[in-house]
């Protein structure tokens, strides 16, 4: 049970959240202009690194806000939490 620091509500148990996968995957400007390969990348291909991963969470049972987290998938350590629209922080 991770303890996830909601940028608004503070630390809450993982079960209050909904996982949203990789962060910073923008909906394509003009999907119609994409090739099938490019569209498939958008649809199905997400990073899956072992290590730091910028990902989205929604505090679905709390304030219902989406936000971003940098978490190490090898250790589950959370390195940063930041709001949607903010750039991924640089972590030493």
């Amino acid at each position, binding site marked *: *049970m*991770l303890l996830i620091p909601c940028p608004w509500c503070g630390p809450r148990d*993982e*079960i209050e959240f*909904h*996982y949203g*996968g990789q962060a910073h995957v923008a909906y394509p400007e003009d999907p119609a202009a994409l090739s*099938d*390969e490019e569209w*498939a*990348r958008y*649809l*199905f*291909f*997400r990073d*899956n*690194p*072992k290590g730091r*991963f910028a*990902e989205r969470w929604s505090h679905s049972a709390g304030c219902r806000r989406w936000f971003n987290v940098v*978490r190490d*998938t*090898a*250790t*589950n350590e959370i390195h940063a939490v930041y709001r949607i629209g903010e750039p991924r922080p640089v972590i030493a």
Partner: protein
Amino acid sequence: MTENLPDHPDWLWAAAEPKRSYDVVIVGGGGHGLATAYYLAKNHGITNVAVLERGWLAGGNMARNTTIIRSNYLWDESAGIYEHALKLWEGLEDDLGYPLLFSQRGVLNLAHSLQDVRDSVRRVHANRLNGVDAEWLEPEQVKELCPIVDVSPDVRYPVLGATYQPRAGIAKHDYVAWGFARAAAAYGVDLIENCEVTGLDVRDGRVTGVRTTRGPIAAGKVALCAAGHSSVVAAMAGVALPLQSHPLQALVSELLEPVHPTVVMSNAVHVYVSQAHKGELVMGAGIDAANSYRQRGAFHIIERQMAAALELFPVFARAHVLRTWGGVVDVTPDASPIVGLTPVDDLYVNCGWGTGGFKATPGVGWCYAHTVAHGEPHPLSAPFSLDRFTTGALVDEHGAAAVAH
């Protein structure tokens, strides 16, 4: 008295030292890697093969799964490869000369809602057309097969029936892995442990070798079998895969006198359970929601698992959880595997089996060996190519195919 496990053979395999080069290097010494090596040697006469394993052989998901074997998948493509596997299972003990404790005790998939029933019946009919044994059972028939299932109508999610595959069952995972390892080693395959692949050498669009914690190794062909770590390894050759890695947990109870004669799985009341040969209840849980490479999952998953187990099996109340553990499973968008070629020549991929690839072990080993040997997909694995994500020809086993184990 109690049922003792059959003995392992006196000799298994010798730890091999890496050579400079091999015709085929298999990355990952789990069940799939070992079965692939075995069939490369046996079916295709290719024996200058190394299986590279970063830890101890078959210590990944092969050491962690709940060992459910069945072939009653929904879609024709899935039925093809899983049924091929099941047929191989039926002759595998003899083939490998190893007691695998393959027990065709049947698998029940319970239905708890009218939609579950529809989906289940649909699968039964699909299975039959595909030559897969399948039956629909009414609650009383479920009770007959597995008397400890609570089929009373007044529980939160009553059992409305079940699909039943009599030929399905379980096997002893370690024995399977070691059976393949031993047989492959006997053909001259090098099984190399504590040898982590840290890089893939790609020249002019062709893979030429691997770099490892035990030095570089040249390879004519490289076949990935890294399960939960497939994304990480494929990325070494610049190949992106539509995978997400999640922890999946399982647990066992203490040894108990026989209470559970078959395998029961339930999607809605998420639980799957069998009583293994020694007498322990083996139970699987769900995946953790978030990506992770930790071989352990969150505790609330286990609690929910137990709540679900007691709904179906009230007599389990005072059984004890002895040990829990987790594995890292690689999940695809359509809950079907990826087997075949990659954009890099001579680099092959077998991954995405997610929560359910143990049952496929001999089948995928067979097809993947063929793919690697011939440089083109085996007909049974062809539908599981990487390019299905581009065309959209997914083999979606989520919706209608019950729990994927």
